[in-house]
């Protein structure tokens, strides 16, 4: 299962992305698309909201890119905790195990089932929409994006 991002969200982040190819070295200080995907997923999970619209979703990558491989247990844990909260399952409730059965697997390097990846995609899409609400114009620099990300995290995690 691929991590996916809506086409318009890809375009939104176009100016701060490393384009790869022959211009890759010029963009070494820019982000990779998964950076934006992940930040948006954090915003979505901070607000505990998903957007399941899967039209115009395009594959980004299958499995985590190198810099994120050490984060897979944290991301999986955060996803389980957030889903339990979104579904109103108390942390002490034995039903928590069912959430784990649904989203976790040892058969994929991400530790996530297809349903787990799909749900993370939905959090990322929601996070992107929330960010676009805060910053309608495309971000033109990494600092601009990161400062808005921080603002969004602080704002939505407290709601």
């Amino acid at each position, binding site marked *: 299962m691929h991590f996916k991002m809506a086409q318009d969200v890809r375009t939104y982040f176009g100016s701060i992305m490393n384009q790869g190819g022959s211009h890759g070295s010029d963009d070494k*200080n820019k*982000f990779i698309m998964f*950076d934006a995907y*992940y*930040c948006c997923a*954090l915003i979505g*999970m*901070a607000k505990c909201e998903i957007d399941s619209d899967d039209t115009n979703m395009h594959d980004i990558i299958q499995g985590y890119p190198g*810099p*994120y491989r*050490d*984060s897979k*247990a*944290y*991301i*999986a*844990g*955060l996803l*389980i*905790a*957030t889903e*339990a*909260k979104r579904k109103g399952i108390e*942390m*002490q409730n*034995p039903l*928590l*195990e069912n959430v*784990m*059965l649904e989203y*976790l*697997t*040892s*058969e994929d390097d991400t*530790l996530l089932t297809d349903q787990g990846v799909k749900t993370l995609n939905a959090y990322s899409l929601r996070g992107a929409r929330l960010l676009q609400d805060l910053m309608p114009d495309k971000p033109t620099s*990494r*600092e*601009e994006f*990161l*400062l808005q990300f*921080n603002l969004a*995290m*602080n704002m939505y*995690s*407290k709601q």
Partner: protein
Amino acid sequence: MKMVVTEMEFKNIRKLSLLKISFSNSNGNVYKNSFIMMGNGTGKTTALTLIRGLFDGTAETWNSDKIRSFKPQEGEADKGEFSIVTKFDERIYKYFLKLDYSNGTAKISCTTAVHGGHETSRRFPDSVKDLFTKEFVRRFVFDGEQAPKALDNESNEAEEAIKYLYRLDAVDEIIKMNERILRQIQDSEDGAAGTDQSVSNLRSRKSKVDKNITRLEERIQEINSLIDAETIEMGRIEAQVKEIDKKFEVLNNEKTAVIETRASIRGEMNECISKIVSNIKSPYLVNNVLCERMKTLGENMTRLKLPKTISKDFFKELAEETTCICGRDIRNEEKVAILENAERYLGSDQQSVLNNIKSNLIGCEYNDTMYTLFESLDDLDVKAKKAEDNYADIEDKLTKAGGEEAERLRNDLKAINEHIGELKGEKKSIESKDDTDPNLNEDNNLHHAKKESGRLENEIAKATRTNEALKKKKIIEYLLNKIRIESTVRLKTDIIAKTNAKLRNVIKDDVIEIETIDRFIHLKGKTGASEGQTLSIAYCFLGTMFEEAELEFPFIIDSPCGKMDFAKRRAVAEILPKMFNQMISFVMSAEVEQFADQFYTLDNTQFITVIAEANQEEVKVHTGIDYFDTYQRTHKEDE
């Protein structure tokens, strides 16, 4: 070349268990005329069929029923043989037709001293080897009953006879061969049609592409010149700007300081961003709410004893046992229930995933690292914006200090820079060798244009080669058709004149004259002729053609007279010997009177009577005029 038949032999063919007919006299010279009278049922039609099948080679294509129809009714012979000995000038060729009645097959072979013995197929002297086609053979091995066809308006016989006897059909063969050669050339050139139109189209397309190449190459030269000129102009303006700037050293020093400050802030900012991006991958560091959520999950997993120590694997193993650990029996019903409920438990592999996650979550501790980093980033962002403002201020001051001139020069520099950028972009696009860029084509890219020009060059070369071949083919076709038409016209004129001369000798009780030959023979002033007249016209026509031919063939004819009246028989009997060097005539008893008997007084003529005795299967052969004449008188009413 002169061809004669010297011998025919039948072995085990219908009633002819063994019959050899020689067409040579005791001195070894070939009889000019041979009359073979065969009584009813002795195999006259069979003989003609075998002669034709052997000479034209079609015997080998006969079906098994036809071949077995030649088998003798009595006896156990399962093989038959028919052979003909011929002489082409003085060279002897013997042809065999071997009939295998068991297998239903026919095989032709020949022996010839010329080619050193036995041959497994028909062989003829080189100069006539292509003549022995079905169409040609049936005109010298002739069925008298077919003669009227020359005048039949539903038949092409007269036209066809000229075509095949004068080998004008070979012209058609050459035309077909010419067509095949062209197709081979076209195929070898990938099917290029090679028409004038296609070559012309290709040339005009290539010319257009070549003009593009020239235009694009000229444009590159032009761009290079423009860049050089703009670079020189830029250097000149920069020198002027520098000169002006020198006058304002203080402001320039300030500008340098601001640039340095801006670079320093950028460096700090990059460092800060790198740290944020590195820390952001630990989500518990990003935000204390998320951290708390993760940690709570880890703690509750411990509290709920997740993952459970009993795994799905335990229940699966239990279901395979016959007795539970509590001592109760595990029957099929219990087994199904255990397996169904086992799905509610994690597998041992999933347990290890949960253990991994739990240990990570329990260790989550939020600190102010990210808070501090974002504070710094915010601060640096403010500083960077301020530095940008300072830079713009100084630029503005410098511009104002240098007056309108400095501003104009800077604007010029900016415009030149942009222009050089555009020119370089255009040049890069023209010179690009990227085959995958959909925006590049033969109109705007040199690589594409050259590739297309090369491709068209190849196409033109192919089309030109086939064009040459097409032109030659058309010339050959034109000449061959002209040869055929003119030859046919001249031959017809000549044949008509000579045939009419013969007709005047043959038909004296009427005025019969050929007017034209167009598919069939058209008579002057008449729409038809009697049966006897028709035969006479046909022989005169056929005789003229053989008489005029360079090659002399024997004339082997079945039923030459048919219902011709006595006067015409006598006339035909007079002209036939003049037309052919050898005539072998298979006649019925009724054809002797006033035809065959006209030859009694001639030298060099033999008469053979082949009869089947009553109640006997074997035929008997009688030679000489006496038996021949007596037999016809006693049997002419039988037919």
